[in-house]
């Protein structure tokens, strides 16, 4: 192996050794990931925490201290234990409802956008009607009609009311994919509609589906807490919303018992901000056009282009640097 070839193979192998390098994750992505992971860890930590969320360990609003890092709530339960259990419940509801909402939204959007015609008119008509009615109202109406609400029924209810905007976003994407040539190829080769939808259309909108899912999860968590604060939460279970509900009902804010209401408030804020930020940064990863390059990167790119131009101008004696354009973007990704 001759020496001039060695750096080229190095650069070529670099992106393969680390598949994430080509994704060009931003700082924003890592910040949001840390927030989301922290919330998940908080929820899971409750499984290991010695005190149960229903265990009475003190009296009304004992201040933090003495083995109770966040004091007690109005029932005399350990706030930290309730917070962990509540976070877990909220996450479960968020995941289940988010999955349901994304699945319905993607299915409706795919069919409407791809098939078109009267089916699209009808499906999008329904979507727009459901979108126009505030979802919290539908949630309230369904919840008061349910004789007993568990976290599962609540998750399903939230899921089946939250899909319309996902359907609308997916429809727009699917109808643009429908006009591409590979769809004609699939049709000519005799593929049926379900297979075309799943194999030839779905992969193109998967990134949107993932982002929609992220937003649906946080939306569902917030919807659950809104319902719980109105008194329609899951009965007999702790969630972030029921925790706030009881804190408000027992005047925690007015009496200054900050440990009873600040933790769920902060976790809810972190959930909504973290998931929104995660969605925004995933958007940047999937959609390179949205990346507003950092100054440093742009300077590097400009310097690199200048170098390339100089190498080209210097003549053909340096084929290793000029012939292969690929190492250039990967090295830029590595530098960022």
């Amino acid at each position, binding site marked *: 192996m001759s020496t001039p070839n060695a750096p080229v193979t190095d650069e070529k192998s670099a992106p393969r050794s680390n598949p994430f390098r080509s994704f060009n994750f931003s700082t924003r992505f890592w910040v949001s990931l840390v927030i989301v992971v922290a919330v998940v860890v908080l929820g899971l930590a409750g499984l290991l925490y010695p005190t149960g969320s229903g265990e009475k360990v003190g009296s009304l609003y004992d201040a933090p201290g003495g083995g109770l890092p966040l004091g007690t709530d109005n029932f005399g339960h350990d706030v930290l234990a309730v917070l962990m259990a509540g976070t877990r419940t909220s996450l479960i509801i968020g995941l289940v409802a988010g999955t349901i909402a994304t699945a319905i939204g993607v299915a409706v959007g795919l069919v409407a956008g791809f098939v078109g015609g009267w089916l699209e008119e009808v499906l999008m008509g329904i979507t727009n009607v459901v979108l126009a009615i505030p979802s919290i109202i539908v949630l309230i*109406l*369904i919840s008061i009609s349910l004789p007993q609400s568990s976290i599962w029924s609540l998750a399903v209810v939230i899921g089946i009311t939250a899909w319309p905007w996902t359907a609308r976003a997916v429809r727009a994407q699917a109808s643009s994919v429908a006009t591409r040539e590979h769809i004609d190829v699939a049709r000519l080769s005799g593929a049926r509609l379900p297979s075309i939808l799943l194999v030839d259309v779905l992969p193109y909108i998967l990134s949107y589906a993932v982002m929609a899912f992220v937003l649906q999860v946080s939306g569902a968590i917030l919807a659950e807490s*809104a319902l719980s604060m*109105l*008194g329609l939460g899951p009965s007999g279970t702790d969630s972030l919303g029921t925790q706030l509900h009881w804190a408000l009902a027992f005047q925690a*804010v007015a009496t200054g018992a900050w440990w009873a209401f600040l933790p769920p408030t902060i976790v809810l804020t972190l959930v909504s901000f973290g998931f929104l*930020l995660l969605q925004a940064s995933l958007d940047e990863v999937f959609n390179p056009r949205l990346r507003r390059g950092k100054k440093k990167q742009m300077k590097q790119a400009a310097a690199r282009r200048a170098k390339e131009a100089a190498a080209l101008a210097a003549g053909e004696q340096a084929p290793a640097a000029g012939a292969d354009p690929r190492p250039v973007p990967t090295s830029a990704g590595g530098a960022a």
Partner: protein
Amino acid sequence: MNLGRYILQKTGWYLVALVAAVGLNFLLPRLVPGNPVDVIVSNLTRGGSITGEQQQQIYETYVAEFGLDKPLWEQFFTYLGKVFTGDLGTSFANYPASVNDLVGQALPWSVAVQLPAILIGWVLGNLVGAIAAFRGGNWDRSVFTSSLFLSSMPYYCLSILLLYVLAVVAGVFPVGGAYSLGLTPELSAEFLWDAVSYYWLPFLSLVIVFIGGQAVGMRSMAIYELGGDYVNYARAMGIRDNTITKYIFRNAMLPQITGLALSIGTLVGGALITELVFNYPGVGTLLFNAISQNDYPVIQAITLIITVAVLLANFVVEIVYGFVDPRIRAAKSGEK
């Protein structure tokens, strides 16, 4: 597509949405297993304060009012007839108070908080977003991050934080309620002055989140418009920056009008719980009390009023949009 058809089509869709909403409002609470009046009356009398004779009287009132002895479709028309003549029924929990009176007392408080919050928040949010986009640099970055944070924050989380920090800890504002004890709502200077001091917190917590949401949208629209061909052209023609800014602002404003339509529903939903946090005597608090007492007529009246208000607001916004932007009428056939 001309303006007349646009308006006609929108009117059609909103009528469908209205019928769907009224239908849901009618149907869902009737899905409660068993005769809802039986359940409610037995719940009501469990306290023991109501004699058998009163119970019978209450029972008969409700059966007659809802027409429960008649088939479902007839009940629906009874319901429709009552709704359209403005009769919202009789409260279960505060028998024999009429729902109209209860809602009538609560509604002015909610409107007084929400309407200014929507209008002021929309104008300020757009200004802030536009300035952030034009200025760029650090100003943009700090405005964008804080707006994103605020807009992602649930209304009630900010409410709780504001209530705790500004009212409980700092003592700048009164803690909860809408006016001081001992005063009765009346149109006197003394009462209004007192009510204003209670007004600030709910108003602020709605308007701040709303400003954030609008600013995020306006910023990205303005950045998009900054790269438009007409901007380059205007620059090349030597048109002054102020004039170009005006062009950009007007173009970027358009999608913000639809943005307003979409956010009204969320704000109204968020405001329900904000009122709860501040114990503000508006529709949200009334709804909360009604839910805790299984007061179906009141719940249904509130959900109906909110739905109609949100649909009406969205409808007005869309019609205004049709007048303001000629493109929407041209492009409408494509975008559903």
